[in-house]
């Protein structure tokens, strides 16, 4: 539930449905748009564009996890598998069949969605722990077995598909600079985020939340639980697939390395820190994790001349920080960053009567 600023009332039901309900919010959104599409890319420098691109990729990846865990109550620890399926499908279609990149991306999303449904099928029968095992199976079967052993061998390329510069194009536009990739990612992320938020406030999304909260009541109200769970797996897989297909455009070579199990775990960490069951939470969590890791690099790099061992240990430090961050959040901020944000916002909306 959200409070509107004092003195604002709606006269039509339509207004309750508007995305941005007051002029003030519209203003904020315009500023955000200017920041994303003008200030950051043109004034921020390549370093920040890179950081932003990674954040965007994390958001797209985490959206599916958020949908499954946060909105439908289906715990998954193998989402990187579906991101990988999207990436590989899009790459194969682009390199082997010379399909346009955006079309390949879309098909990549569909294939990843269907692949996700396949591993979602057990959710019809099992819950909780057993479902987590299924999602682990998705991870290892897909990435460590099928992609590594078989798909990577297609076209005799060995371990990785190289993506020579210029192989990824949108119409006449060649995606050959970090800036162009960033713009594509920003547009995709905005579309996917808004689309998912829309979905969550319509029939399908409400059914997911109902299944999460009380599956008996949901079924009594006419919700076909199995169908809707599978729909959640499809949409989560689709969004993951698009994320993977997008990530391809940042790479010089695609290999299963990019989709290891730790990435699945990482995405779950993102939503835990950002806030489970919140779209904002997905965004905040991604920002937080990416920035913390950049901060870590920032601290470590000046220290490496003194302690050269740190370079070797960076991966270890990264994982330790990840674990520590999650523990701290679970203890001190169990509702995630999104909840804090909501409190601050309402404080100002209700100000000066915010007691």
């Amino acid at each position, binding site marked *: *539930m959200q409070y509107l600023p004092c003195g604002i009332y709606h006269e039509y*039901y*339509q207004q*309750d*449905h508007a995305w941005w309900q007051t002029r003030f919010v519209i203003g904020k959104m315009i500023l955000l748009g200017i920041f994303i599409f003008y200030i950051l890319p043109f004034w921020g420098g390549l370093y920040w564009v890179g950081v932003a691109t990674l954040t965007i990729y994390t958001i797209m990846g985490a959206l599916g996890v958020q949908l499954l865990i946060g909105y439908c109550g289906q715990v998954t620890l193998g989402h990187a598998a579906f991101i990988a399926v999207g990436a590989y499908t899009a790459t194969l279609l682009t390199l082997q069949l010379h399909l346009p990149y955006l079309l390949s991306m879309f098909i990549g999303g569909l294939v990843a969605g269907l692949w996700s449904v396949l591993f979602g099928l057990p959710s019809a029968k099992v819950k909780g722990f057993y479902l987590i095992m299924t999602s682990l199976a998705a991870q290892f079967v897909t990435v460590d077995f099928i992609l590594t052993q078989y798909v990577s061998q297609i076209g005799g390329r060995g371990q990785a598909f190289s993506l020579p510069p210029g192989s990824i194009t949108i119409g006449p536009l060649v995606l050959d600079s970090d800036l162009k990739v960033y713009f594509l990612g920003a547009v995709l992320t905005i579309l996917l985020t808004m*689309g*998912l938020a*829309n*979905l969550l*406030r*319509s*029939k*399908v*999304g*409400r*059914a997911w*939340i*109902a299944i999460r*909260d*009380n599956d*008996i*009541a*949901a*079924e*009594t*109200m*006419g*919700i*076909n*639980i199995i169908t809707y769970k599978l*729909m959640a797996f*499809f*949409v989560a897989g689709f969004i993951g697939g698009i994320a993977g297909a997008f990530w391809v455009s940042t790479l010089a070579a695609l290999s299963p390395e990019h989709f290891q199990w730790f990435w699945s775990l990482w995405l779950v960490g993102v939503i835990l820190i950002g806030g489970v069951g919140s779209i904002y939470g997905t965004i905040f969590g991604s920002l937080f994790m990416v920035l913390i890791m950049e901060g870590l690099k920032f601290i470590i790099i000046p220290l490496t001349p003194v302690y050269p061992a740190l370079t070797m240990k960076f991966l270890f430090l990264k994982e330790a920080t990840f674990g520590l961050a999650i523990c701290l959040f679970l203890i001190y901020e169990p509702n995630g960053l999104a909840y804090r944000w909501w409190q601050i916002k309402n404080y100002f909306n209700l100000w000066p009567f915010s007691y």
Partner: protein
Amino acid sequence: MPSDHFGPIMLKVNDVSMFFGKVAALSGVSLDVREGEIHSIIGPNGAGKTVLLNCINGLYHPQKGEISFKEQDITKIKTYHRAELGISRTFQKIELFRGMTVLDNIRLGRHIHLKSGILSGFIYLGKTAKEEIKTREFIEEEIIDLLEIESIRNKTVGMLPYGLQKRVELGRALALNPKLLLLDEPLAGLNLEEVEDMARFILDISQEKRWKVTCILVEHDMGVVMDISDRISVLSFGNKITTGTPSEVQNNAQVIEAYLGEEDLYATRR
């Protein structure tokens, strides 16, 4: 009131038995519910009333017997499908979506009437937006007005007092626009004023032209049951003792015996 003035049989429960292990929660229960009536089911604690409702709406599958709804055999049909046919219900132990607002809970009751899918929901503009606004209008005009819950529509359900939660649950069940409504102890735990309101709502739902919903009412409050029921079936230890009008049931020797030790029929809970 002669029961003849009701319509055709809407729900037929035929020789239904349900066992949990060796315990027979229902043994060979048969009853029929006619269109338009308020059919109450009473009986001591543990008589099998809730189990019977669960069988009717498909949460339990009886080992023996058939249930048909509007002359269609629904014994093997899934719960969600029975909802689509027009069977809705409330629960003895409230089963709301506690984290959602009142409006969203009631919106869920509209599920079977909405058409938006993944793609149209993703885009939202146009079809889905129109559908959502129509849903909102329906809920405001038909449900919120009727149940007098204007002031709490945007509140989170889990934070509401018990009596209001019961009301919201009724609202959600009604939003489905049911033909048959199963009410499992809607008055339990309510205070006197709330009991009167709730009884009035049930009568409205049953009698108002707009609704005309057939109701099966499981309830311990004999005062209300005798007042508003058209017919009453009595269960005891999983057996149906009798079905009849309130006065017939009150004078039935077996019923009085089943309730022996529970003081007078009228004395309960008030």
